[in-house]
């Protein structure tokens, strides 16, 4: 996983609540069993008119936001289906940070596993960032724009994993002995769990 250091980008405003993963990547755009080839389908219902003609009204199609790596949204971003394809599509397209008032829990976890930073800010702060260039310093947990800087919260482990590009499975397998010990005890206590 690519480590997340600092990021400076224009902030593309998609200031809607309840942006769901069906819209981020519709099921019909999930064409292969792997994690690749999804960027073209990102936001397909909003991004394209008929026959894949770009919809000029959609934020990511506007020239100013062509290379945007930061997306700003409203509340409950990433709700709906658990499909990690939504994060894979965002990451492949080039989005490294989503700023929202809140995130659906599965989506936020999927972000961390894929080097995408979910940042929670208040509605007014998000509105102020839209259309501006912003710098995100994950180590300092700050987002700066137009000479103003504000902090954000992130779980300490998620931060470490993003900063260092760590793989969660490798980290957990360091506890393999403890897990095996747990299973041995648990098998006696709850035998019905073990089939």
């Amino acid at each position, binding site marked *: 996983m690519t480590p997340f250091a600092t990021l400076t980008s224009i902030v593309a405003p998609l200031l809607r609540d*309840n942006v*769901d993963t069906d819209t981020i990547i519709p*099921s019909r755009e999930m064409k292969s069993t792997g994690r690749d080839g999804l960027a073209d389908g990102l936001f397909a219902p909003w991004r394209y008119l008929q026959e894949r003609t770009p919809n000029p009204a959609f934020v990511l199609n506007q020239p100013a936001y062509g290379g945007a790596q930061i997306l700003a949204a409203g509340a409950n971003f990433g709700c709906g289906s658990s499909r990690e394809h939504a994060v894979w599509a965002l990451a492949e397209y080039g989005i490294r940070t989503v700023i929202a008032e809140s995130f659906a829990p*599965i989506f936020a976890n999927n972000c961390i596993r894929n080097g995408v930073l979910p940042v929670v800010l208040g509605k007014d702060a998000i509105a102020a960032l839209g259309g501006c260039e912003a710098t995100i310093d994950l180590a300092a947990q700050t987002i700066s724009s137009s000479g103003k800087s504000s902090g954000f919260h992130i779980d300490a482990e998620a931060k470490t994993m993003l900063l260092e590009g760590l793989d969660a499975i490798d980290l957990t397998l360091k506890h393999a002995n403890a897990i095996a010990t747990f299973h041995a005890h648990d098998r006696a206590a709850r035998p019905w769990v073990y089939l």
Partner: protein
Amino acid sequence: MSGDNALIAIDRVFLHERTGAAALKSMAAAGRQVIDPARVFAVMDHIVDTRPGRTDATLMPGGQAFITETRAACRAAGITLFDVNDRDQGITHVISPELGIVLPGLTLVAPDSHTCTQGAFGAFAWGIGSSEAEHAMVTGTLRMARPKTMRVTFLGALGAGVTAKDMILTLIATHGAGGGAGHVIEFAGEAVCALDMEARMTLCNMATEFAAVSGIVAPDALTLDYLKGRRYAPNPLPDWSDLVSDDGAVFDTEISIDASLIEPMVSWGTSPAQSIGIGGCVPHDAPQRALDYIGFSRGQVIAGVPINAAFIGSCTNARLADLRRAAALLKGRRVATGVHALVVPGSSAVKRAAEAEGLDRIFTQAGFEWRESGCSLCFFAGGEGFAPGSRVISSTNRNFEGRQGPGIRTHIASPEMVAASAIAGVICDPRGQR
């Protein structure tokens, strides 16, 4: 472990071909192995053809690879698979309880948001991504922070013709699609205890539509009766009577709802939170974007709106009790002219049981298509879909823009409202159709 996280032991992992394939592929590519394959299960449900005589071929272009690759990967990993035409095939969250795979007190995860359905059995069951599914399979654990707790108490009794679907839609409509964010919800109260297991599953199913991590109902005698004799359930069942919240337990958030005031609900907009009682009208502060998509105006009465299609299916409302209640309304009646109606049983076992009772004939004589089990038209995968521009009344869980196809306008409701509306040709109160 650093930060707020702990390792939590995962007792069951359930995969399906749509998102499980990616987890299995990634695991194989990394040369990793499943720590305990006997506790991992997989099923083909999401993009399988539901027309009679189905094969691996899917109506979704390219879908067959998800099926064949999942099958090969399950075989290689030693995972039990309920295959396309297996008699135990069905929607993940329908077959897991049928087979006794979910049990009280277990942790169960699946790369599917509606895994919370299975919290109806007093299990901690929740949806995850494919990467976390791989993590759970390989390590037998997940890294997670303790969620916040919420209790939603439904006081009193539901009125006649009002269902668990109406309870959960009322909760979400009242408190918003983000109302449960960060919480695991215990559903409690007289009206919840009175629900049968299938209705409890409907209630817990849409906890994810409330942004909750999961929903849970304390196991009781009904839970044990349901699980007794199921294939993967222990015999005899252990004592799970301590799996209840302590008297005086303190929750981070408490919500109470008077069940007696709940009406049959239907969504008017593009979020499950945009739902109203069947006697209601579109709110005066309704967002324009939702109105434009759904083709409604503020203040419009929802009862009487013409529909083009009616769908009974999904992990929310396609179990035997759901089909029975819908069939009771359809018996001896016909679907309105021009309404495309279909019913897709939640599992192959539900389908067989319904056929044994003659429900299939009630549905087909009423003009419904009777399908093989699967997730089907709950979402549009690029293959089969409703006619362009259709307005659909649907027993499913999501009415997002485009969820059932580009431009398709979805109204989520109980199976009985779907059946009643199919007959009437307009959205209508099932209580008037009995």
